């Protein structure tokens, strides 16, 4: 039960509370570049969501089994030459960035081929922004967040599994789609406004983005409230002694 609450909170956090665009300000390039029309923005959001999910799945698998210190595949392969003690110390996490970029680039290429074959209209309307997803920091950010929940986490139970990683990526993408579609809706209306000349175009879009980000700050704290509401009292009671014994404090 708490596991599903956990997944729900990760999803909600990625989509709304810690929205990638409005909370972390990553992925601003397509957020500004492709938010002129709602349909295009929605298509861009879907493409980013798809690439993010694929890249997160690959990143999680690679990090969990190959890249993190003491990963099983690496330990086994290193054990062929080294004694078990030394084999456990082989650390391939230096490769993480290269592997993530590699995975993102490959999935973008895949999406591009798919779109060109089956959705040529969307493909043409994306233009240069589709290859630019490759360098979209929102996706790399999702991969790095997943890495931070695997590498350096000592408690094996606290490490994220694949479902948690996918929830973060999928709903991070959904949050990005939400953000860019809201933005596109506002910018379509802005076209008809008499904006002072120095603010026309990108400047006013950034101002609007800032105001939207402030609006999204209203979600802060929703996750804590939900966690308290959704966790059954028995689980809190069961967790409390553990927490107490863990940090040695005696908070009620």
């Amino acid at each position, binding site marked *: 039960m708490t596991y599903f609450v956990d997944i729900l909170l990760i999803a909600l956090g990625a989509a709304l509370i810690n929205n990638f665009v409005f909370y972390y300000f990553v992925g601003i390039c397509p957020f500004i570049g492709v938010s002129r029309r709602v349909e295009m923005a929605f298509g861009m959001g879907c493409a980013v969501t798809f690439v993010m999910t694929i890249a997160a799945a690959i990143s999680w698998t690679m990090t969990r089994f190959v890249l993190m210190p003491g990963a099983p595949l690496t330990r086994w392969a290193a054990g062929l030459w*080294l004694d078990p003690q030394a084999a456990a110390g*082989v650390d391939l996490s230096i*490769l993480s960035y*290269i*592997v993530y970029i590699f*995975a993102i680039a490959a999935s973008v290429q895949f999406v591009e081929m798919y779109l060109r*074959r089956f959705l040529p209209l969307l493909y043409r309307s994306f233009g240069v922004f589709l290859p630019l997803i490759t360098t979209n920091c929102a996706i790399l950010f999702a991969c790095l967040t997943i890495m931070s929940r695997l590498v350096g986490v000592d408690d094996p139970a606290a490490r994220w599994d694949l479902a948690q990683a996918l929830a973060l990526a999928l709903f991070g993408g959904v949050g990005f789609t939400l953000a860019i579609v809201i933005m596109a809706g506002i910018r379509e209306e802005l076209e008809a406004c008499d904006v002072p*000349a120095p603010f026309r175009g990108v400047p006013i879009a950034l101002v609007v983005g800032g105001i939207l980000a402030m609006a999204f700050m209203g979600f802060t704290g929703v996750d804590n409230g939900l966690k308290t509401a959704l966790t059954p009292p028995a689980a809190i009671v069961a967790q409390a002694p553990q927490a107490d014994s863990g940090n040695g404090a005696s908070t009620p």
Partner: protein
Amino acid sequence: MIIWVTIGLSAAAMGTLAVFFTSVLGWANRAFHVPVDPRIEACAEALPGANCGGCGFVGCREYAAAVVCDAEPVDRCVVGGQSCTEALAAIMGVDPTPSLPYRPVVHCGAHTADRLLRAPYHGEPTCAAANLVTGVQGCTYGCLGFGDCQRACPFDAIHVIDGLATVDYTRCVGCGACARACPRNIITMAPFKAERILAVACSNKDSGKDVRRVCEVGCIGCKACQRACSLFTVQDNLPSIDYDAYCPDDLGDAIRAMEKCPRHCIVAVGKPSAKDLAALGDEQLPDVVAPDFKTTVDDTEWRG
């Protein structure tokens, strides 16, 4: 030892990933292959790439695709002109039809001083907005002079000079953006059978009495041109020129009609004639033009 194992394992991991992605993408490349007609590429190469939309398609690529797939005529590109038509015809294996250059003609001859019953207008400084308001000027047909055409022109070839849109035919390529932008539809695309052709510089369809009230130079529908030359037909108090029958080598009657016009509404438009150039010939042009902030800053205005 451990460093060599790390390096070896890194190489192996990257190699495995590379093989994995290569095979997936290789499969996708074959499975999602889109056959593209090489002629589309060739046609797109032959087109100017200005994406002006003068052919009626969104951009040059769309027109290229339409030429190849839907057997669209090859002479639609007004920017590329005859050479472009020939290139497209060679790619498609069809005979190039001779295409006349179409250029915009402004059917209004009134500068600000000629327009009567003008009222101060402080609204949005665009023709589209001013056209919604009555009483900006007496003439409800003629040029408003707020420059929607000037802003629409991608080639800087039409300017509002003294309140009247004036085409710079040395720069104009005939994309038709100005004709689409004009809210009063006084710019039409005319076939230029010669460098300079005759055109009617008025759009007012009211009776002569009403025209005199609102304009110093507008056509009063006297039909003098129609009597002098068969090319002219007066309908709704306004003459039009039959450009199909127009022959640039035999203009005797038309010139006479031009001279007969009491309001001088029939004018020659086009590239400057030899006489115009000769008149400018002895003008002293400076070698270096010093930048002037009045002409070099962009003309967007603060409208907050």
